[in-house]
């Protein structure tokens, strides 16, 4: 064995990961020769446990796949069940779902900003961004009485309608956010931050596609792939938004990409608010008794959701009983973890946090 090579475990120090990912690095001096991510420390058996539960019993658990974007995960499961049982969702409920999902995407991105900046050693800007996230969580709390796990979706609709006051709250929040985002972008436009993120962890177009990366990480590598556009679900084909992309594919462009996505989400939310203010209608499918959702025959369905960390899909195999035969989740972070050995090869040891943070890996989502 080469004596100059040192094996060190450098996983547990990243705050966004909080000790659940092991990174075993082989280093020569300060340079990483190879790195191996070890996952599975947060495995909760969320896929297997579905087999003993009815669809309704599993609905609150679906949020725990990714607790920072609960609405998005529940939507993935709900839409799969709705496909399975052929349940129609009223239009107003669809708009409400899209609005909440986009708000949740913003909250998730803001949390990522906060923890990423903290990882890079920038203390106070991280708190600025978390302040804005707090406002979103307050809106969610007023609506669902919960801050993190909402359990707001129903098969064939949502639990509650959005009234005028909560719509106005959301509008006010968007005004605050758009004025502050520019300010934060300027604060972070300093040479130390750029030196830590620019030209580091460059993810090329081909590598990204070969590793089946989705979401903001892929779009930052100049691939305009967004499942909201390519396979529109709910009402995404009726709202107007763009797919922002970045050219470089380094940590800084992933940072800019998420900022740009927040702006696009704001656009979608404003359109939803406009629709919800002008129209009235049902928020639930009246023909469905949600306590007894039973698929009619053997069927396999897959739902695709563009989540905050890439493509989230839920596959359900049903044998016609009240319980699913098998459930399989596909989440974005699981694929991003595989990138680490590629991106960190021949880099400095201190780059680990910059690269790891920029990929927005969320361990509960990886292990499920």
């Amino acid at each position, binding site marked *: 064995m080469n004596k100059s090579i*040192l*094996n*060190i*475990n*450098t996983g547990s*120090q*990243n*705050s966004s990961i909080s000790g659940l990912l092991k990174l075993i690095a082989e280093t020569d001096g*300060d340079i990483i020769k190879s790195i191996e991510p070890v996952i599975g420390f947060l495995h909760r058996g969320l896929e297997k446990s579905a087999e003993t539960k009815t669809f309704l019993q599993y609905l609150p658990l679906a949020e725990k796949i990714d607790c920072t974007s609960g609405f998005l995960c529940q939507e993935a499961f709900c839409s799969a069940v709705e496909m399975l049982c052929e349940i129609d969702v009223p239009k107003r409920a669809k708009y409400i779902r899209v609005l909440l999902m986009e708000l949740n995407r913003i909250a998730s991105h803001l949390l990522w900003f906060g923890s990423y*900046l*903290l*990882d*890079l*050693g*920038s*203390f*106070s*800007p991280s*708190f*600025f961004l978390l*302040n804005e996230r707090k406002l979103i969580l307050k809106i969610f709390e007023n609506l669902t009485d919960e801050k993190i796990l909402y359990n707001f979706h129903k098969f064939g609709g949502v639990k509650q309608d959005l009234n005028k006051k909560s719509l106005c709250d959301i509008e006010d929040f968007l005004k605050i956010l758009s004025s502050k985002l520019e300010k934060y972008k300027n*604060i972070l436009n*300093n040479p*130390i*931050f750029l*030196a*830590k993120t620019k030209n580091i962890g460059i993810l090329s177009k081909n590598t990204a596609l070969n590793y089946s990366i989705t979401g903001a990480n892929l779009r930052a590598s100049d691939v305009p792939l967004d499942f909201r556009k390519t396979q529109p679900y709910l009402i995404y084909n009726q709202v107007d938004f763009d797919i922002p992309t970045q050219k470089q594919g380094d940590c800084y462009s992933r940072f800019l990409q998420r900022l740009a996505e927040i702006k696009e989400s704001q656009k979608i939310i404003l359109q939803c608010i406009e629709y919800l203010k002008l129209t009235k209608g049902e928020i639930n499918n009246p023909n469905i008794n949600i306590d007894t959702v039973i698929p009619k025959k053997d069927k396999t369905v897959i739902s695709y959701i563009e989540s905050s960390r890439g493509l989230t899909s839920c596959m359900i195999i049903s044998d016609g009983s009240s319980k699913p035969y098998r459930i399989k989740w596909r989440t974005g972070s699981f694929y991003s973890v595989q990138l680490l050995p590629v991106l960190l090869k021949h880099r*400095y*040891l*201190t*780059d*680990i*946090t910059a690269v790891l943070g920029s990929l927005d890996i969320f361990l509960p989502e990886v292990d499920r």
Partner: protein
Amino acid sequence: MDFFVNNYIDLFEKLFNVDFLYHPLLFYLIFLLWYFIEFFIILTIMMFASAIFIIMEKKILTFYISRKTSNLICLTDCLQIIAHGIKLFFKEDKFPQNADKTLFFIAPIIVFAPVLFVWMLLPFGAGFLPVKSDVGILFFIAVVLMPSLGIFLSGYACCDKYLTISALKSCLHIICNIIPILLSALSIVILSDSMSFQDIVNLQYEHGLLSWYCFPAFIGFIVVFICICLMYKLPFNFSQVEKTIISNYNAQYSGIKSAMFYLAQYSSVFIICAFCSTIFLGGYLPPFHFSFTNFFDDNSILYGMFMLTEQFFWLFVKTIILLIFVISIKTYLPAMRIDTDISFCCKYLLPLSLINLLIVCLIKLGGLYG
């Protein structure tokens, strides 16, 4: 200080009705006692300064990030520090399984003791200088560098690859930052023809603010200030950069030992700022020729007390202004990467301090100073 010693001895002579000149043993005992008193005064100042610094940092940070801190303990959380101290004192003291017990025990002491000793080297008032040295500056920088040995030992003692690497990096960082400070201090030695702090401060008296050394050695002042900002962020500061593998050396310490690291961090930043204001900003001298002591009789003990308080005040004001700048800069900028930081020190700060040295030499040759 001689003024105080004389008064002090007079007091004893009157109290016990003896003439000390005829009792040399008693004389030295009294003198020794005086040194202990001095030591405890310095210790109190140090604890007090660290406490002020911690409160100040908390308040400034919460002001910048617009959040509330704990404000329920009395006097809007000023006594929180005492509560923290008591809590740390009663915490369980743990040894890691494979640790070298001797080194593990010694390391915090090696970090803490030099920081304590350094406070003896700076003059806090005219004559109030417990350790009188003709090579004060050199001595100061040598002692300030000592904690890096303790830091290395603290990482090495735990028998942990991770901690050893982080300790090595921290040492490297401190040494890289000290070299520009040393070269900038050299320019002051050239200007004043002396290495003793007392002389350096006295030479900055003549025209008040205008004769401070921060004007001829302006670049040096800036370099030292940047170095303080950099040092404040990384070597001692474990909360900031514990995510990158830099200062995890104190990860294994708990209880009173971690409190020693913590205290060493704050008091060393304070004392380096005080050092900077001593050599560049006139130390304990006021910025203009005015003193309340003019109203007192020259020989009264009240005069001495008042003079000393006033000089203390000026040094503290200067130091605290520097500290406010350091904390503000730390609030907005992220921490540097260790390799960027070292190349920054070697490629920019070191040449800048050499240029500063050249400018100061030219000024000195021109006959502007002495």
